[in-house]
């Protein structure tokens, strides 16, 4: 039949078309230069800015760790001590208010200018005056002055034992004052309005780090190239590409097929499913994030859970071991992130005791439990799906008769309630801004999370307030340990929080990548990585 013939012809045409498409396809890696050592990192980019005075996200940390240096730093793998970086040594005045740093005199910025005390002054004042996202870190700095070319002096408003730990933050990156001024930057009082260097710093780095920012294409990729004149040990890779891959499932496929060398945002289960793959290496260890329940102290908002006895009952009712099955990690001994100096480990943590929980509930007048709504954001952070935990919490509390209904909110909506102290019963996580025991004060009356639970200094025990006041300024490490132990003891028995898990953080990489460690401050340092040859 005529039409059938014509159809056959049409069909053949379609098949030829398909063949062309297939020919066009085919995987071929076309690397820029064959002899270049390239590292490709798959990551769900969160960058808000790469300007050290403005950026405050996980990705900013990774990039700025590579492109800038700070005065002092932590060791590669943890926050156990303060090491020199651009500063060779420092002195602290007896009252803890004045810090004097001596700088290295052999360091040059990537454009050849050598660094001096003026660059430090400029960087710190700019951080303070631009009032960008990380500006709060500089709140306690009263002044910063250059004593001579290589000596710089900070004066604080109040003594602050965590000051050196704060200086390790990438927000305190030392930037090239002249270069930034040339590109519209300023550290003047009115820098918030007059500084125009952000666009420049989003596409160029003005630092002394092992890498130079070649370009940042938001939501696509960030490209770093090796700084040939780096003052420290030269890094292995010539070029580092941080490719934005938002979906964890896609990161895993890209890693397995070798397009990326590392995947930073996989879940624990995804990583463990590759444990037996010889071409993949995995890193797994506790993160600095504590997941906790918030029980509002204000009876108007918290209702039943504002009762201290109920709060304790809930701490006894949670299945701590179960959360470890889900996410690995550790059960924190308190709201002080495990890993900070003096934080309680698992041996001092709560363990589940359903009978005790039921007793306490009966004591509080709720022998048959009660109904309550748990609010939390519908969010996944570092592979931990908060929805999964919320369902587990619901099922845990059901065992002692507490009937929880779940109210996941859009992240921003939920954050708003939480930050305004309007959430009665909430589930959140917290990562310390400063890797110092002082961070625990955030959870106490007068602290930022304490406020959100309406746990105010007006209603808190005097005994606790005295402890807080001492902990805030104590610099002697022995005394500090004791004070923070007392605070942690207090939080276990009373208080509106139930920390239940500090999940593992995990990274998977091609087996030939060497030297990877996770860091709680800057996530990862690309300059210490290399490839087996």
């Amino acid at each position: 039949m005529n039409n059938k013939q014509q159809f056959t012809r049409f069909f053949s045409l379609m098949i030829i078309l398909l063949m062309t498409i297939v020919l066009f396809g085919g995987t071929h890696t076309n690397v820029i230069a064959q002899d270049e050592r390239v590292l490709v990192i798959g990551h769900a980019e969160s960058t808000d800015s790469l300007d050290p005075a403005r950026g405050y996200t996980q990705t900013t940390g990774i990039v700025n760790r590579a492109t800038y240096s700070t005065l002092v730093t932590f060791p590669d793998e943890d926050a156990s001590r303060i090491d020199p970086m651009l500063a060779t040594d420092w002195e602290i005045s007896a009252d803890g208010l004045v810090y004097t740093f001596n700088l290295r005199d052999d360091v040059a910025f990537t454009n050849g200018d050598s660094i001096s005390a003026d660059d430090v002054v400029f960087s710190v004042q700019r951080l303070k005056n631009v009032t960008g996202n990380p500006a709060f870190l500089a709140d306690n700095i009263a002044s910063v002055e250059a004593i001579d070319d290589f000596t710089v002096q900070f004066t604080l408003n109040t003594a602050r034992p965590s000051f050196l730990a704060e200086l390790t933050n990438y927000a305190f990156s030392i930037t090239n004052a002249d270069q930034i001024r040339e590109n519209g930057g300023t550290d003047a009082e009115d820098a918030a309005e007059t500084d125009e260097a952000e666009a420049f710093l989003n596409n160029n780095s003005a630092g002394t780090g092992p890498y130079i920012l070649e370009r940042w294409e938001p939501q696509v990729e960030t490209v770093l190239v090796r700084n040939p004149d780096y003052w420290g040990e030269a890094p292995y890779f010539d070029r580092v590409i941080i490719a934005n891959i938002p979906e964890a499932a896609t990161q895993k496929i890209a890693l397995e097929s070798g397009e990326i060398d590392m995947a930073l945002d996989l879940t624990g289960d995804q990583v463990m499913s590759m444990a037996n793959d010889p071409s993949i290496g995995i890193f797994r260890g506790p993160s600095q994030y504590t997941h906790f329940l918030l029980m509002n102290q204000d009876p108007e908002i918290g209702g039943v859970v504002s009762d201290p006895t109920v709060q304790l009952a809930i701490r006894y009712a949670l299945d701590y071991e179960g959360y470890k099955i889900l996410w690995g990690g550790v059960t924190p001994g308190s709201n002080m992130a495990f890993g900070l100096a003096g934080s309680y480990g698992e041996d001092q943590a709560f363990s589940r005791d359903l009978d005790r929980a039921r007793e306490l509930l009966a004591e509080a007048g709720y022998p048959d439990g009660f109904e309550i709504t748990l609010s939390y954001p519908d969010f996944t952070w570092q592979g931990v799906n908060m929805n999964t935990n919320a369902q587990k919490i619901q099922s845990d509390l059901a065992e002692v008769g507490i009937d929880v209904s779940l109210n996941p909110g859009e992240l921003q909506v939920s954050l708003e309630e939480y930050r305004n102290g309007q959430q009665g019963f909430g589930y959140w996580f917290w990562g310390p801004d400063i890797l110092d025991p002082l961070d625990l004060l955030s959870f106490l009356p007068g602290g930022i999370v304490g406020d959100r639970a309406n746990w105010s200094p007006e209603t808190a025990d005097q005994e606790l307030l005295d402890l807080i006041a001492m902990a805030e300024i104590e610099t002697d490490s022995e005394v500090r340990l004791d004070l923070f132990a007392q605070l942690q003891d207090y939080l276990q028995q009373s208080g509106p929080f139930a920390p239940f898990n500090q999940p593992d953080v995990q990274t998977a990489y091609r087996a030939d990548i060497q030297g990877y460690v996770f860091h709680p401050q800057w996530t990862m340092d690309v300059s210490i990585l290399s490839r087996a040859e």
Partner: protein
Amino acid sequence: MTSYTTSSIQGYEKPKRLQRLFLELRRNPIVIAGLIVVLVWLIIALLAPYIAPFEPLKQDLLVRLQSPDSEHYFGTDELGRDIFSRVLYGSRITIPAAFMAIMTASLVGSSVGALAGYMGGIPDEILMRFTELFMAFPIIILAMAIAAALGPSVRNLVLTLVVVTWPNYARIMRGSVLEIKNREYVKAVRSIGAPHWYILLHTIIPNALAPIIVYMTLDIGIVIITFAGLSFLGLGPEPTSPEWGRMVSIGIDFFDQWWMWLFPGLAIASLVLALNFIGDGLRDIIDPHLR
């Protein structure tokens, strides 16, 4: 072209509507298959509590992420819940929600579209610009706004779906009405002085229904799929709910544990395909031009 000829011969015989329906159905095995699948799902939805071997919400971390075996036919999920039971229970959420959304959307949409198409002129322009306002607005932003303002739940999901789907019905209905109202037989009815409402309800709409029904049967699948898409973006129903789309979207993060996404995915696909085939068959039967 044989089927075409037989059905046109039947047009002359003018058998009773129901009889004709059955006659056509007998000749159309795929419609029967579709009907059986939908019927099975309806029965499952009704009887889920009696046939599910496990509580759909019962967690057991000790058996989490187990592959299918003789105890857990479809394996278990990340919290150790039985996926087979959850898939069965899922039908009780997805089916009524999708039907609700589609019925409401088509009713609202077709009314607006029919009015616009029939009246023409300024009212047409106003109604259609209003419709376009909804259509032109990006679905994602609209859905996020609704979810953020009202909170995620099945009811709000249905509302979101109605808001984003009704304009399609308006467009399609208007398109058909525009085309039909100039046909000879409509002109004929008009020329004998029939009132507008009569022309619209008895002459135009019955003839314009076919594309709407075709679209509804396809759209009900799209609604189920969109449900799943919104779940993926975190705008789905309550987290414990064994809604299929939510199960698949969680399963994406467990791609190696294929049972987590495959079974709820197949549940969705079987229902959507079945509805589509029924739709095609029904359309062939209802459409007066095909007889």
